[in-house]
């Protein structure tokens, strides 16, 4: 049985298409991430599912029932807002009880449910505090408890960790992951942070420019990205400009005597880019088959590992080297080095080039 299903959603604001023919399904009990850069339309999709925004086109199903024309109140969803939207004039207890009070539940029932939720979100002793007396993480948990109180069919979270600092964020993300396993509600959260999506979701739905780029498990989107956008947005990646000709890959700026063997043959000859994750690059002092000559530009200490920048022909690639290997080899700037690409993916250079290019530039992967 499906938890949430949306079909052909479309939403236009003035002249801007925020959501463009989006369809996906989320199984009951799954926790899915809507992942994408800011302005990609992911929050709008979430608000359409909630009924806070009306789609121009498309259908929405919650637990196999069509709710496209239902009001927010009728959909029985729990929504956690990015800035929590707690009721400032109400205590923690009153905030959590709100959804039950408007349903005119009995006092006894409300009390029992509120106590249960306060226990669940670990806010014992804060019952009579006001939101402004709480920390960011505590507010977030109140918002969560409030959303869960009316026992919603689905839980929707808009950038749930966006306004928390890194440490609280990590703890809370893990905690939500565990909580989700216990209460088994279908959940969707919006995020622009790929680490967050990787860490806590069962399924990632990648959104870019209002469209779905890929749907898959965190592992699938990381290891077998469907598009160049996915490869570059999820995790760090090197872009190596090359040309395919005669079944071989020529790296721009590297002597034509040295080529890579083609592994995927579905690309026509022409300009391509190789996308290689930093951890898929290994370095060696001596040439072997299929490795490329380069010069080390710089070596950076990154705490648990070293990052090595290497010029390979016209391309700057970054490799991640663990401490043991660094100790053994002692890489220095200006050292000649041979670079071996492990897993990599080849994409047509023209496909969505501008956007990926500017994104990589922003993250410092190309100059």
């Amino acid at each position, binding site marked *: 049985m499906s938890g949430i299903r949306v079909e052909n959603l479309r939403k236009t604001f003035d002249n801007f298409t925020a959501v463009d023919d989006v369809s996906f399904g989320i199984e009951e009990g799954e926790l899915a991430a809507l992942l994408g850069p800011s302005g990609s339309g992911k929050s709008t999709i979430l608000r359409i599912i909630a009924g*806070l925004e009306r789609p121009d086109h498309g259908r929405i199903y919650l637990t196999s029932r069509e709710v496209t024309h239902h009001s*927010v109140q009728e959909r029985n969803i729990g929504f956690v*807002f990015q*800035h929590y939207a*707690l*009721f*400032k004039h109400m205590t923690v207890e009153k905030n959590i009880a*709100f959804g039950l009070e*408007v349903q005119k539940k009995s006092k006894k029932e409300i009390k029992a449910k509120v106590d249960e939720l306060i226990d669940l979100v670990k806010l014992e002793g804060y019952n009579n505090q006001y939101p402004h007396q709480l920390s960011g993480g505590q507010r977030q948990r109140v918002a969560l408890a409030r959303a869960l109180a*009316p026992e919603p069919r689905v839980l929707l979270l808009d950038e749930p960790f966006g306004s928390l600092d890194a440490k609280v964020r990590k703890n809370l993300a893990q905690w939500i992951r565990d909580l989700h396993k216990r209460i088994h509600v279908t959940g969707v959260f919006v995020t622009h942070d790929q680490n967050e999506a990787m860490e806590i979701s069962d399924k990632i739905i990648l959104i870019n420019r209002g469209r779905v780029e890929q749907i898959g498990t965190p592992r699938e989107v990381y290891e077998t990205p469907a598009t160049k956008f996915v490869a570059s947005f999820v995790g760090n990646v090197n872009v190596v400009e090359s040309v395919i000709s005669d079944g071989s890959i020529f790296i721009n700026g590297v002597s034509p005597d040295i080529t890579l063997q083609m592994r995927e043959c579905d690309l026509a000859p022409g300009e391509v880019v190789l996308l290689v994750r930093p951890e898929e690059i290994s370095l060696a002092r001596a040439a072997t088959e299929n490795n490329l000559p380069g010069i080390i530009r710089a070596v950076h200490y990154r705490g648990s590992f070293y990052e090595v920048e290497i010029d390979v022909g016209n391309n700057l690639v970054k490799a991640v080297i663990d401490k043991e290997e660094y100790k053994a080899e002692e890489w220095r700037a200006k050292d000649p080095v041979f670079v071996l690409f492990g897993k990599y993916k080849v994409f047509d250079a023209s496909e969505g080039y501008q956007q990926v290019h500017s994104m990589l530039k922003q993250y410092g992967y190309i100059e």
Partner: protein
Amino acid sequence: MKPTPDPVDIEVITLWDKRVRREKLGKWIIIGLVFLWFAFLVLFPLYGIFREAGEEGLKTIFSSLKTADSIHAFYLTFITTLVAVILNTVFGVIMAIVFARQKFKGKLLLESIVDMPFAISPIVAGFMFVVLFGPEGWIGSWFESMNIKILYAIPGMMIATVFITIPFVAREILPILREFGREEEEAAATLGASRWQAFWRVTLPSIKWGLAYGVTLTIARSIGEFGAVLVVSGSIINMTQTATLRIHDQFMNFNYPGAFSAALVLAVFSFVILLFIQYAYKKKGGPLL
């Protein structure tokens, strides 16, 4: 044992002392100026009223306040104020919600029209109503044919007071509603609350101190209103004479004890309102509890 202070340290300390002393002096000069200004404009006139009224003796004050005309004047002020507060609270909240939450053509124009009573002189406003509701005016002639008296009667005074105090409630809560934003109302909706429930349980509690502030300003303005009411009422004793009109009337007739005693009551009342305004203003600015 105490270490001997370094001569450089001593120099630094004396320089600092000098500067602190200079700053303190500057501070007291500024505060003194504010007090003088305040005394000149507010305290002296206020003291004057109390003294004049007091010179007549408490007995004279009470006896002039106890006359039927005087009681009627205060009653009229009370009634017009009550009507202005009720109407402008209800419509002020509705207007503010519409301006803060809805998008429509001509919104900017409508918003600036709400401020008109701020800009327009009360006398001019009163004159507008005389033209509109007078026997020659197009609405006035209709009312006259229905035998309903608007002008030089209580309904006209109420309309004038309501008009003068339109902006206060709406203007006070509009910025709060804008800042408060939509999210909390949306949160209420996702929790199953109807719009009506969301308004009473979420929106209204958030704006209540702004509303209280706006209402107090409306009360103060309604009680003190003179120009517009004078024009539309004709200031007929025991009929259409409010407290401010009575003060004016007594003063013009050289009945100083009467004028001062009525003025004293209004001054005391204003002071109470002033305290409440300060209280509501503080509450409005602080955390919305």
